[in-house]
């Protein structure tokens, strides 16, 4: 049995700029999901997903120590932050753009994700203001 999940419901992401390059780091919540990301979130798919924003190639680097894939998007910032006509010249929202992607995973890969799918692996410490797991649900 496979399921379709949206990255925004299971993953973290952050993006930034270097000249006309942007990077988008995508973080998986579990080892199994990291393997699913490696299989599903290919550089070709990311290139297609970003559409007109990316005029060059997309590189993908694996960062297993933090269960991340790091995507480098070439010619992706309209010439760079100080040259761009865009309202997001730094590509800060590219992380959320990637989180729109939906991927197919199997039930084994969904294991340990929690019932709402969305809760990232929580800290072992800190206050527990809401609920048994210390986190309130997504607003």
């Amino acid at each position: 049995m496979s399921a379709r999940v949206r990255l925004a419901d299971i993953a973290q992401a952050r993006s930034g700029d270097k000249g006309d390059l942007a990077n988008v780091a995508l973080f998986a919540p579990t080892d199994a999901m990291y393997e699913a990301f490696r299989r599903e979130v290919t550089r070709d798919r990311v290139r297609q997903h970003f559409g007109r924003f990316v005029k060059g190639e997309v590189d993908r680097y694996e960062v297993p120590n933090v269960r991340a894939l790091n995507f480098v998007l070439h010619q992706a910032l309209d010439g760079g932050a100080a040259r761009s006509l865009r309202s997001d010249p730094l590509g800060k929202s590219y992380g959320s753009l990637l989180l729109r992607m939906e991927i197919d995973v199997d039930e084994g890969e969904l294991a340990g994700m929690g019932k709402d799918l969305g809760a990232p692996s929580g800290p072992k410490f800190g206050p527990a203001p809401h609920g048994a797991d210390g986190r309130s649900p997504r607003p």
Partner: protein
Amino acid sequence: MATSDASTHDPVTSVRIGAGQGFYGDTADGAVDVARHGDVRYICFDALAELTMAILQKDRMRNPEGGYTRDLPVFMRRLLPLARESGIRLITNAGGMNPLGAAAAVRAVARELGMGDLRVGVVTGDDLTSRLDELTAAGAALRNADTGEAFETVRSRVVFAVAYLGAAPIVEALARGADVVVTGRVADASLFVAPMVHELGWTFDDYDRIAAGVVLGHLMECSGQATGGNYSGDWWNVPDLDRVGYPVCEMRADGSALLTKPAGTGGRVTVDTVKEQLLYEVLDPRSYLNPDVVADFTSVRLDDVAPDTVLVSGVRGAPRPQTLKLIAGYLDGWMGTAMLGYSWPDAEAKARRAAELIDRLAHRAGLEPLETLVEVVGIDSLHGDAAPPQDANEVTLRVAARFATEEEAARFPRVAMPLALNGPPFIGGAGGPGGPRALLGVWPAAIARELVEPGVTVDVRPAGAAS
């Protein structure tokens, strides 16, 4: 503040360093909290980014006395008294395109505060703008590091060029007793590496430890982005981001470090918040290039070890790159922006019709943009082709156009103004003209160390002395 006997001191086993600024425009509140509650010996301020260098160069072109961050005196007025009280030394790259001007501004604030004995160090030599012909004659090709294009394609339009320096000149300033060190384009992480080297007795061929310093510097250089800001996980549970605690690290001599934040502040420090910052603006994580080392970010181990405390360990490094990174900024036209807000029904369709009308109005006014970008804010400005169709309640049309001249860019928004009465119905909401704004392209390149490093100077002198 530490008296000026710092040149001869024994290495310590650990040093606590705080982050005071993540960008030009950041609040000084974070640094004040670090100074008061962080128990630190150093606070490092990263004021620069590629975009910031372009902004500061525009300032310097308008006023030769400018070119450093204008809020530097504001930071110094708030931080210098606290720093003196607690024996904290301050390191900042807020000098931007004019570190000498910035150092003069710091000395002026110190004198104002009755601290004429404050020793201010300044690092210069990163600014290669006036040396470009000499450097290319000496063999620097300065090809675009991304595209391979020849430097000649932009040379005549270049308005600044800087090399990214490493930690060594700051270490020298600290060794000579500087209480405050002001630099230009020193690499962000190197601001933090310098006090580690100075205090812990590291040498620059100790690649793993220098790389550990680079990793911690990289984690801290964007202030609240490591401590809960911009966090993409359960952001709604992160407390009190209005007073987010800026990062504080306790770096040990062995290269392992605790990353935390001042007691009583907001935000969150966990593996989940920290790992996002680990890969921020990173290209190949196995090979993160810094002027002093190549750090392997895939070797970094992060562990939650206490509340709001992450242990960073295991970092491996390799010998530094042969070359230094250089960025040049070149003039690439002027931008003018027209914005109009539209409401339901058919908000997006109205905005797109208005964009067509603006295009025709500009043409009739004799304006021929080099390029035009149409965004419908609320629909597709951030996610482009991936944004789903929607029946938006309200949108803002934003038309940005690039021109060869400032005059055209200034005229462009005005051609859209008649649409307030003459265009599609139910206009309102956010809108208005923007620009003209100079556009600067950033040209990344590499340059041989021997063309840059002999020109680096370190000057340390008391605020009270003639400058």
